[in-house]
């Protein structure tokens, strides 16, 4: 679909969110270097158009579930970046009070059912959310994001089957960045992902995930089908992964040329700027202003996170149950 179908403000918002994700991730990578963000994290940089294009089709109360690489989906679904940054720093003001960390950011008020440290585990959970929507008659839809590697976990296939026979209002978005950790997808995946979903009679759409407009259009079709009671759709979205698998990955299994070409040729932000410029819909200066705005917001998030207290020691054993004894 053409960029023209989005209003000027929508376009600016799309850009802002993509830019926000990109810079959030770049900043997280930089802050990892300070040692102040504990552990490791999986960065979504390069894949922004997928999360943003899909979530732009969603209502506030629609559900999404994410993966270990969850920051982009969270931001696109509207989770507050201050709370996310604080969560990464392990602070009490984090989205999960500092108890979850990068791989478990969840915000049910935004319909965000959680990043997930277990590959493919979000798929059946999202079927459950879709079932809730269906049985409660709310008209909500649910989106399960997953990677190419996740396609080889059995529960993914089980979820396709369940979603189809129960005609759930769900969209499976397979973000194919060509790698599961350091292993190339071609080395471990037989056949075709779209044919896998189609073998359950689930309609599929293959999309260029560096073009937010294509993603938006495909997601629109899927969401419309889901809301109309037409059951599941699977989107196979091709995306680049800018960093290594995780923040500590030297990524030597890809050649420097290959990585340079990826960043040069497969950049959703550059694509977007070019596309809107071609049709003179948004001024370059306006996007530059967004860049600055984003920068400031991220600065604020980092400063606030650094200033926030760690969780109280009592938090260690609370929230295991609603009520135990």
């Amino acid at each position, binding site marked *: 679909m053409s960029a023209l179908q989005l209003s000027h403000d929508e376009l600016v918002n799309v850009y802002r969110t993509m830019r926000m994700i990109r810079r959030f991730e770049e900043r997280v990578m930089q802050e990892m270097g300070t040692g102040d963000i504990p552990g490791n994290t999986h960065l979504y940089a390069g894949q922004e158009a997928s999360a943003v294009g899909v979530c732009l089709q969603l209502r506030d109360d629609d*559900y999404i*579930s994410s993966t270990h690489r969850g920051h982009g989906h969270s931001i696109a679904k509207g989770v507050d970046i201050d709370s996310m940054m604080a969560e990464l720093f392990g602070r009490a003001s*984090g*989205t*999960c*009070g*500092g*108890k*979850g960390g990068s791989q*478990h950011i*969840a*915000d*049910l008020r935004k319909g965000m*059912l*959680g990043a*997930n*440290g*277990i590959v493919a*585990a979000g*798929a*059946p*959970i*999202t*079927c*459950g*959310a879709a*079932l*809730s*929507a269906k*049985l*409660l008659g709310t008209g909500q839809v649910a989106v399960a994001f997953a990677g190419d590697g996740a396609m080889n976990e*059995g*529960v993914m296939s*089980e*979820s396709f*089957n*369940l979603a189809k*026979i*129960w005609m759930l209002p769900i969209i499976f978005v397979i973000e194919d960045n060509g790698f599961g950790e350091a292993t190339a997808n071609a080395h471990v995946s037989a056949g075709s992902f779209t044919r896998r979903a189609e073998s359950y009679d689930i309609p599929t759409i293959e999309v260029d995930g560096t073009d937010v407009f294509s993603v938006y259009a495909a997601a629109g079709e899927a969401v419309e089908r889901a809301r109309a009671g037409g059951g599941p759709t699977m989107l196979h979205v091709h995306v680049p992964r800018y960093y290594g698998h995780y923040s500590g990955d030297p990524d030597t299994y890809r050649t420097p040329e290959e990585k340079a070409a990826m960043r040069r040729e497969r950049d959703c932000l550059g694509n977007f700027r070019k596309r809107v410029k071609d049709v003179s819909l948004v001024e370059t200066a306006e996007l530059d202003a967004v860049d600055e705005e984003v920068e400031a917001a991220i600065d604020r998030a980092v400063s606030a996170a650094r200033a926030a207290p760690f969780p109280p020691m009592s938090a260690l054993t*609370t*929230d*295991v*149950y*609603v*009520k*135990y*004894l």
Partner: protein
Amino acid sequence: MAQKSFRQALNEALHFEMGRDPRVIMMGEDLTGGAGANGVKDAWGGPFGVTRGLLDAFGPERIRDTPISEAAFIGAAAGAALTGLRPIAEIMFVDFAGVCLDQIMNQAAKFRYMFGGRAKTPLVVRATYGAGSRSGSQHTQALYPIFTHIPGLKVVIPSTPYDAKGLLLQAIRDDDPVIFLEHKMLYDTVGEVPDGAYTIPFGEARVARDGKDVLIVAIGRMVQVAEEAARKLAAEGISACIIDPRTTSPLDEDTLLEFTETIGRVVIVDEANPRCGVAADISALLADKCFDALKAPIKLVTAPHSPVPYAPNLEDAYIPSADAVVKAATSIIKR
């Protein structure tokens, strides 16, 4: 009060709560039996007849016969619990938890904690457990030690029809994920069960029999075995007290400690395998907290460290017997 079977007690709880709360739904394999076939609907009433009549009463949207995909439908149940429903999902035999443990252990059990307390997961996973049905090694395990080990889960193991109903109602109303275990060999046992609804709180042990010489702690079906042992002991002039914890997580430590303090001699009977089992768990607790009150070592009567065999003579020997309990009790009384 009416005499009812364990099966019927469970069935009543399900009927009652589904009638009361429209958010309660059920899913599992052959929950009804005959789905999609041409003959009798609800032909099985569930693999063990526990869910009979629910399809008729609540329809196929709320009573969902699933594909053989435990990971998918347990996960779906967890996701539905996270988003406003109160699902009851059935794993036909608890042994099959091996194909869906992730959704129980890493997902449902941990949502609330990982999400900083900003979620709840009112999920009940029902499953049958236990030896005695000549079904071989993969359909007879107890496995509750595994669930008891996992923070975030509650583990319920009723031993009587009365408890089965009250504990199941509590499980469905509970806001945390509950593993509800039903011993296959208990379904036909009969006891008094009120017609109306009632709940039994978790973490409250039941004193199944009063006595002063030895305390027998028994889990699930082993309460029956303990009762038989107590009768035999009584014949020898030994008075045995029996405590049924009813839930292993939470565990009613107070009652166990109180009775241990008073009686000073303890035997724990548990059908599960012994290593890292519930018997050892309770023993460690009592041996620590009641050190001075203990007059003799705590004795554990459990299954051996082996899978469940098929041959009837071996399977019978596998299951803790009343005689073994008597022997253990006598050994510490004589001491």
